[in-house]
């Protein structure tokens, strides 16, 4: 059976060049980067090269990069660290309703500690309005933390404009760039970014490695204690193989970005157009053009996402959904809810995220298989009455729609 992996926003395979160097650092160059001997010095060299590779990709200085265990840790470090370091200046933080839980749950934790958080709403395409942001700024706002690309619907937020507003108001600006790092051009100076989180496993490096960019001179209270590694900001023996792999993956991503984005955009648009054309009552979620090259997110009415994923899986296709039934929480995706999409339509959402390993044949295969599956599930759905062609009117009345 053909196997098609279209869940690159969840994670990516490690690319062979990266796997090779990681293996070398597991078995040969295995020293502790803090050791004085040659084994340690070689490991240290690998770490510092990686730091340069990462810094280059976002136009930062190597000493502004701090390695972490991934995006989640970098988000926690930036948000909690800034809050604690600036609590005498103010208690207010601004974020959006569509952040990843690594940011949202960290903000909720801080609310319990006495901080106040504004969760900015977004429009139907998950786009943020700059006037809304400006109005939310208070005298005691100490941090704005906003993602670059939304992980579910792929909308690209106007980071440069947000950065300018943050700077104008003298507020620190953190960007969760886990879904854009290595995929979209980032210039931390031009964009006025003070802190930025990135993760290795979204760009063909191993899982469990990421980093925080922290602009020189930015105050941050540590949230971990124990050693002098990463200049005491992130103590603990470095994950040298992961770091070296992450560095190489970042460099390669930078080199290939322009071409790969052209390729992915073409595949993405073919897939979006094909689905909307072949499947009646389907809709695109997220922005049509301000959109990550590899992201497709559609809602297919009258069917539920988890059963759709199971059916796709039986045909070898790996995807994800914002349905409540897949979340384990009984609530549909908070992102789709924030966009004003009603429960029933959010239940039928399907995310296909493309990457390096996908080809045009993969797109054709999905476009061949998906309509049949949707038809089969709709036949089973009490919401879809294909015989009488009756349509339920709930959604036009749905109170959840903005």
């Amino acid at each position, binding site marked *: 059976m053909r196997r098609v992996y279209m869940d690159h926003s969840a994670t990516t395979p490690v690319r062979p060049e990266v796997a090779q160097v990681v293996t070398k650092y597991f078995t040969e160059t295995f020293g502790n980067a803090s050791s004085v001997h040659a084994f340690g010095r070689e490991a240290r060299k690998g770490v510092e090269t990686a730091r340069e590779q990462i810094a280059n990709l976002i136009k930062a200085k190597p000493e502004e990069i701090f390695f972490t265990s991934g995006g989640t840790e970098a988000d926690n470090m930036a948000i909690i660290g800034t809050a604690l370091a600036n609590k005498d200046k103010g208690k207010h933080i601004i974020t959006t309703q569509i952040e990843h839980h690594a940011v949202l749950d960290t903000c909720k934790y801080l609310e319990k500690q006495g901080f106040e958080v504004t969760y900015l709403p977004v429009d139907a395409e998950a786009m943020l309005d700059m006037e809304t942001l400006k109005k939310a700024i208070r005298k005691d706002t100490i941090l704005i933390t906003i993602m670059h690309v939304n992980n579910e619907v792929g909308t690209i937020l106007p980071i440069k404009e947000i950065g300018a507003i943050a700077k104008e108001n003298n507020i620190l600006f953190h960007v969760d760039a886990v879904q854009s790092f290595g995929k979209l051009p980032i210039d931390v100076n031009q964009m006025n970014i003070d802190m930025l989180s990135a993760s290795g496993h979204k760009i063909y490096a191993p899982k469990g490695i990421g980093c925080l960019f922290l602009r020189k001179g930015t105050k941050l209270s540590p949230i971990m204690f124990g050693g002098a590694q990463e200049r005491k900001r992130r103590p603990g023996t470095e994950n040298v193989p992961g770091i070296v792999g992450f560095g190489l993956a970042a460099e390669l991503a930078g080199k290939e970005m322009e071409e790969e984005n052209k390729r992915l955009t073409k595949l993405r648009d073919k897939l979006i157009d094909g689905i909307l054309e072949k499947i009646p009552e389907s809709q695109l979620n997220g922005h049509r053009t301000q959109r990550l090259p590899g992201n497709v997110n559609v809602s297919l009415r*009258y*069917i*539920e996402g*988890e*059963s759709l994923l*199971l*059916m796709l899986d*039986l045909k070898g296709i790996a995807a994800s959904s914002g*349905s*409540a*039934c*897949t979340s*384990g929480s*009984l*609530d*549909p995706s908070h992102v789709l809810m924030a966009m004003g999409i009603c*429960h*029933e339509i959010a*239940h039928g959402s399907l995310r296909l995220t493309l990457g390096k390993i996908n080809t045009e044949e993969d797109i054709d295969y999905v476009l061949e298989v998906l309509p049949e599956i949707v038809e089969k599930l709709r*036949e*089973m*759905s*009490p*919401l879809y009455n294909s*015989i009488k062609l009756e349509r339920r009117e709930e959604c036009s009345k749905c109170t959840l729609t903005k």
Partner: protein
Amino acid sequence: MYTDKVMDHFTNPRNVGELDNANGIGEVGNAKCGDIMRIYLDVQDNIIKDIKFKTFGCGAAIATSSMVTEMVKGKSIDEALKITNKAVAEALGGLPPAKMHCSNLAADALHKAIEDYKNNNS
């Protein structure tokens, strides 16, 4: 995460569809996750002669719907009323803990359809 039995009922669901001559219909929505199940009954002399279902929900919801229709087809309505959510889940070889609530749909929809039949025929 699902047993083979669940996957079997999910991929080859028994008794999907509607009954034009239904004399009992039950629909339940699980308020929690927003899923919906409808069961159609054709009852003759207190025996469930035919039964069909339509379900909007996850794999577990579809499998439990299918299983419950199979369990009661040909049975008397008194026997059918004794079917519990737990019995449906057990017949499927168990459900993941997070999916136990889906099995509520199936037995509830069945009981509601029987109630509807009784109301229609009292």
